[in-house]
C-alpha cells in the first residue's frame, strides 16, 4: 500500500471558491444560507438555500454553457482549480494512469427539470437536444476526463449524501494499491430546481425558516433543529502517492489514511446506529488506527432529527467513554447540505482545520438536544487543537455510509 496525498484542491461553494476564504468563513461561523429570492420561491414552504456565486460566463465558452448542466460546470471548474493548485500533477503522467472519480446525488437535475417544464408546463414538444447529455450523472466525470486527457477509469458514484466520500474513498484505494498515479476525486451537486426543492420539502426533511435570522435556519445537534438546508457546489481533490507529490514539490494538504463503508440495510431513510458505527470502525481498520488515534470528527450533522441523534449514538458506540473528548464539527450549518458533493467539501474543511490547528464550530447551537450530548464545538471555533487524524463522516438515504480517515501534514 502506498501513502496517498491530497496535493490539490478546487472548490465551488456557497462559502466561496478560494480555499482560504472558505476556511475563514467556516472558522468564523459566517453562514451562506439565505432566503431564496427566485421566481418560484413563493411556492416553497421555507425558501432557503446556500447558493454559489459561480458565474459560468467567466470560465466557459457559449457552447460549453449550453452543453453542460450547472453541476458539470461546477465540477469542471473545481477540477481545473484543483490541478492549478497541484503544481502540475499531470506532468509526466501516463494518461492511462490518471482517473476521475465523481460523486453526485442528483446529477443534471436542473436540466431535467427544465425539460419537464417545457413538456408539461409549457405543453411544448420542443425539449432541447442536449437534455440527455446534460442530465446524465456521469457527464461531469466525462467532461473532466476529456479536458485533461485522463484515460484511466472515469467513474461516477451516486449513493445520495455519501456520494463524494465514496468517490474519494474509491479513488484512494486505486492510488494506494498502485493502479493509478493521479486521481481527480470529489463531488458536485446543483440541486436547486423547483422540482427538487419541492420533492425534498415533501419528504419533510427541510428546515423551517428562522424569520429573524434566515442564515441560522440549519442547526445541527440543537434541540431547536428543524431539518437541513440544500446547498450547491463542488469540491475536487487531486490524489497521488505522497512520495510523488513530495518529489514534485507540490503543496500537500493532507493524507488519506483510510476509508470505511457499510450498508444500513434497515430502512430507506432512517439511519442506523449499527450501520454508522460499522463504517467508522471500517475506516479505523482500513487506516490501521485504534480509536484512540482519532483527534477530531467532521460530522455528517445534517440538522435533521434522525441523523444527529443517530450519529451521536454511533460515535459513542465506537469511542465509548472517550466520545465526549473528541471535538465534533457540523459545518452544514454554514454551507448547507451539498448532497452528493457534501463529503468532498467537508473533507476539505477537515483538512484545513487540521492545517490551522482549529476545531471548526457547529453554529446556531444554543441548546443541544438531550440526545446529542457530545462536544460539538458550539458556536465558536476552538484554536490550538492540534489534530493529527480527523474522521469525515458521510451518511446517506439508501444506507451507504462512508467514512474517510484524514491525516494532517505539518
Amino acid at each position, binding site marked *: 500500500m502506498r501513502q496517498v496525498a491530497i496535493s490539490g484542491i478546487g472548490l465551488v461553494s456557497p462559502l466561496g471558491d478560494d480555499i482560504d476564504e472558505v476556511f475563514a468563513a467556516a472558522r468564523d461561523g459566517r453562514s451562506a444560507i439565505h432566503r431564496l429570492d427566485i421566481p418560484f420561491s413563493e411556492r416553497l414552504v421555507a425558501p432557503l438555500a446556500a447558493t454559489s456565486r459561480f458565474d459560468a460566463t467567466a470560465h466557459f*465558452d*457559449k*457552447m460549453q454553457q*449550453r*452543453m453542460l448542466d450547472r453541476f458539470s460546470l461546477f465540477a469542471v471548474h473545481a477540477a481545473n482549480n484543483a490541478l492549478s493548485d497541484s503544481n502540475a500533477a499531470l506532468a509526466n503522467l501516463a494518461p492511462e494512469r490518471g482517473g476521475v472519480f465523481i460523486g453526485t446525488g442528483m446529477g443534471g437535475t436542473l436540466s431535467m427539470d427544465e425539460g419537464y417544464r417545457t413538456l408539461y408546463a409549457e405543453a411544448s414538444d*420542443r425539449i*432541447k*437536444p*442536449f437534455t440527455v*447529455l446534460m442530465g446524465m450523472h456521469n457527464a461531469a466525470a466525462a467532461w473532466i476526463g476529456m479536458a485533461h486527457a485522463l484515460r484511466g477509469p472515469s467513474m461516477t458514484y451516486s449513493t445520495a449524501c455519501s456520494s463524494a466520500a465514496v468517490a474519494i474513498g474509491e479513488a484512494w484505494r486505486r492510488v494506494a494499491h498502485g493502479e493509478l498515479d493521479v486521481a481527480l476525486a470529489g463531488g458536485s451537486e446543483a440541486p436547486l430546481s423547483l422540482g427538487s426543492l419541492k420533492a425534498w420539502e415533501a419528504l419533510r426533511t427541510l428546515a423551517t425558516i428562522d424569520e429573524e435570522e434566515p442564515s441560522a435556519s440549519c442547526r445541527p445537534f440543537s434541540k431547536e433543529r428543524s431539518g437541513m438546508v440544500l446547498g450547491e457546489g463542488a469540491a475536487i481533490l487531486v490524489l497521488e502517492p505522497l512520495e510523488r507529490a513530495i518529489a514534485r514539490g507540490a503543496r500537500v494538504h493532507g493524507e488519506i489514511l483510510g476509508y470505511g463503508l457499510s450498508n444500513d440495510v434497515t430502512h430507506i431513510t432512517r439511519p442506523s446506529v449499527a450501520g454508522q458505527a460499522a463504517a467508522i470502525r471500517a475506516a479505523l481498520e482500513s487506516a490501521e488506527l485504534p480509536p484512540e488515534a482519532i483527534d477530531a470528527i467532521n460530522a455528517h450533522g445534517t440538522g435533521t432529527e434522525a441523523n444527529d441523534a443517530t450519529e451521536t449514538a454511533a460515535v459513542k458506540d465506537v469511542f465509548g467513554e472517550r466520545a465526549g473528548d473528541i471535538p465534533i464539527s457540523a459545518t452544514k450549518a454554514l454551507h448547507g447540505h451539498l448532497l452528493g458533493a457534501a463529503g468532498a467539501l467537508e473533507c476539505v474543511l477537515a483538512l484545513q482545520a487540521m492545517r490551522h490547528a482549529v476545531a471548526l464550530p457547529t453554529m446556531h447551537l444554543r441548546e443541544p438536544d438531550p440526545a446529542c450530548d457530545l462536544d460539538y464545538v458550539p458556536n465558536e471555533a476552538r484554536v490550538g487543537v492540534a489534530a493529527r487524524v480527523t474522521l469525515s463522516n458521510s451518511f446517506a438515504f439508501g444506507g451507504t455510509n462512508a467514512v474517510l480517515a484524514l491525516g494532517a501534514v505539518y
Partner: protein
Amino acid sequence: MTTSLESIRTLLMRDHDIVPERLTPEATLDDLGIDSLGVMELLWNLEDELGITLPTDKVPELHSLGEVAVHIDALIAEQRADTIATRVS
C-alpha cells in the same frame, strides 16, 4: 442567396461567435468547428426559426453551409407544398 442561409449564418454568429466573413456557402462545418452535436443543435434551432419540422429518422451528411441551406430549403418547399395540398383537399 436563399432564406435559410441567412438564418444559418445568424444562428452560427449568435451561438458560436463566428465572424460573418467566415460564414460563406463554401465554408465547411468542420472548418468552423461545428461537430455533429453542433449540427443537431443548429437544425433544432432552424426548426423554430423557419417553422419547419425536420424528419426524425436521419440527418443527411452535410459538409458546407451551402449544403445545409439547400437541404433546409428543400424541406421548406416540401412542407409548404404539403400544407397547400392539405388545404386544397
